[in-house]
């Protein structure tokens, strides 16, 4: 018997898998059998397939035309809470086209702080809450990578 905790951006689910491979999700038995790498047969009927892929602690699942992403909870690992307090980062690699704020500026939720260009499109980086710009980490022309903080707002 082992327990796996999976989280999506809404909530956690506790999955137990017994020594015979029987699976329960939040204590409800769910038929699921590994067929081949990345392919799981689910449910009681024949031929309902889920496809699964792993990248580190992330699990991707395609089932019935929807795709779900989960994160595997690690014992001892600290819960991840978005990026560091109020720091806004690039969602994908891109070039900084324009910076609309300076440190110390007061911003409102939804204000455009930085404009990136990626894949020939402009992507505005907007404040996710009201606050004050604490630090700027980019300049026009910078090439930025996903996850790297661009602006800190507090």
């Amino acid at each position, binding site marked *: 018997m082992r327990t796996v905790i999976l989280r999506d951006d809404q909530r956690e689910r506790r999955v137990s898998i017994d020594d015979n491979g029987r699976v329960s999700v939040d204590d409800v038995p769910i038929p699921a059998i590994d067929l081949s790498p990345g392919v799981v047969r689910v449910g009681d009927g024949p031929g309902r397939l889920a496809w699964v892929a792993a990248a580190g602690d992330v699990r991707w699942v395609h089932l019935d*035309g929807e795709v*779900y992403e989960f994160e595997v909870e690690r014992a001892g690992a600290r819960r991840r809470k978005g990026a560091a307090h109020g720091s806004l980062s690039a969602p994908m690699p891109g070039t900084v086209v324009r910076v609309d704020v300076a440190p110390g500026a007061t911003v409102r939720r939804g204000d455009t702080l930085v404009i990136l*260009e990626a894949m020939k499109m*402009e992507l505005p980086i907007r404040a996710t809450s009201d606050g004050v710009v604490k630090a700027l980490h980019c300049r026009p022309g910078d090439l930025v990578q996903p*996850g790297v903080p661009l602006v800190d707002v507090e």
Partner: protein
Amino acid sequence: MTLGRVLIANRGEIAIRIARACRESAIESVAVYSEADRDSAHVRAADLAVAIGAAAPAQSYLSIPTIVAAARSSGCDAVHPGYGFLSENAAFARACTDAGLIFVGPPAEVIEHMGSKVAARELMMQAGVPVVPGVTPADQTDHGILTAAEQVGFPVLVKASAGGGGKGMRVVRDAASAAGLVGAARREAAAAFADGTLYVERLIDRPRHVEIQVFGDSHGHVVQLFERECSIQRRHQKVIEESPSTALTPRLRNAMGEAAVAAARAARYVNAGTIEFLVEGAGDSARFYFLEMNTRLQVEHPVTEAVTGVDLVRAQFTVASGAELPWTQSDLTQRGHAIECRVYAEDPANGFLPQAGPLLLYREPRTPGVRIDSGVVEGGSVPVNYDPLLAKVTALAESRPAAIARMAAALRAFPILGIRTNLPFLIRVLEHPDFGAAHLHTGFIDEHAEALLTPREPPPEAVAAAALSVPPVRSAYSDSSSSPAGADPWATIKAWGR
């Protein structure tokens, strides 16, 4: 003359599509690739491959001298530009011709003429083809654009005079919001086309986007291969196309087909091209307006190939070699109903933001009546540098409902994992009651955003399947991390205290 060896000046699915047509026509093909594409599928699809430079398009796929030199040095006698990149660049067509290469497409001066929205409109008006009211203001300052918008009448569409593809395009509903939107449009236009000139046109209310495929040869023949409806768009880019269009009555279809042929004749058009129209209203009284002409093969050409049964790319080679079109107008008919879905690496729930990353799992469905044109493979990755189109799925069936059902079933059996895609979104569009009822217009996605974009709660079966892939704790840290090198420190944490 017959073509012996063709350089394919493109990448991804369209490069592979062209390489296949070469093989069927007993023409040798030469692929080109940037540093980012060294291991891409299109490189292996051709007979030969030539490296053309850095990942940035300007230093590879958009570099005219590099591509012309690659064609010369690899012994090509022709160049197929595909779509996007240099396909509608008159200077490129001219550079090919000057280097003694056949450009598989219309003559450079036709590309130039139809590429200018102003010149194209004037030509269409002369040919008796209706156009949308609009203007390229001589005064290109914010003030000049605003004045033009007031003359044309709000709401207006402000867009790059030099290009298409939705780049540098903004809807401006009133004078108050104009300044910011015009600035953004100008910057995007300048970045994408090296020309920030803006065009202002009246926004047609709830229009349907219906285009006619045309084809001309150098002997003066012009035919039309019926319509494709492309009303399902996001960011002014098409995602689902179909033929026939439910917007057209037989009478309107004839009128639009005739207008398209008249337009192509007026342009002295040679090779494959598309006349895009906006359709306003319904029934025989619906009105259509010339939008623009695409002087190249369209992304959505498989829809036309499905309903007419012809091979447009092979015909491009036939016409480029100087021969006559393989069909006359009376040879061409529409049969059944075809739908194409474009599968993009993008995040619909997050403004359709393009995604780059690894394709951990990618399995194309094999079902009857479904064609897949793709440029990626499982284990490959989607680079950040290019358009994030992964695959085009085209379903043909005897009726529209049957084609929709066939398409939805195919997409349900098309798992793509490791990168977010629009696949779930496409299925939701196909199964939306208003899509089934053909209540289509170019604002469809915005109108139904909530139904189409709201994330769904994972069913317990999905959770169970994910859990089975988590190995018992002792080996839990040995699975290889395929995630892109993230800056997030938590993503790199492995075992504690071991």
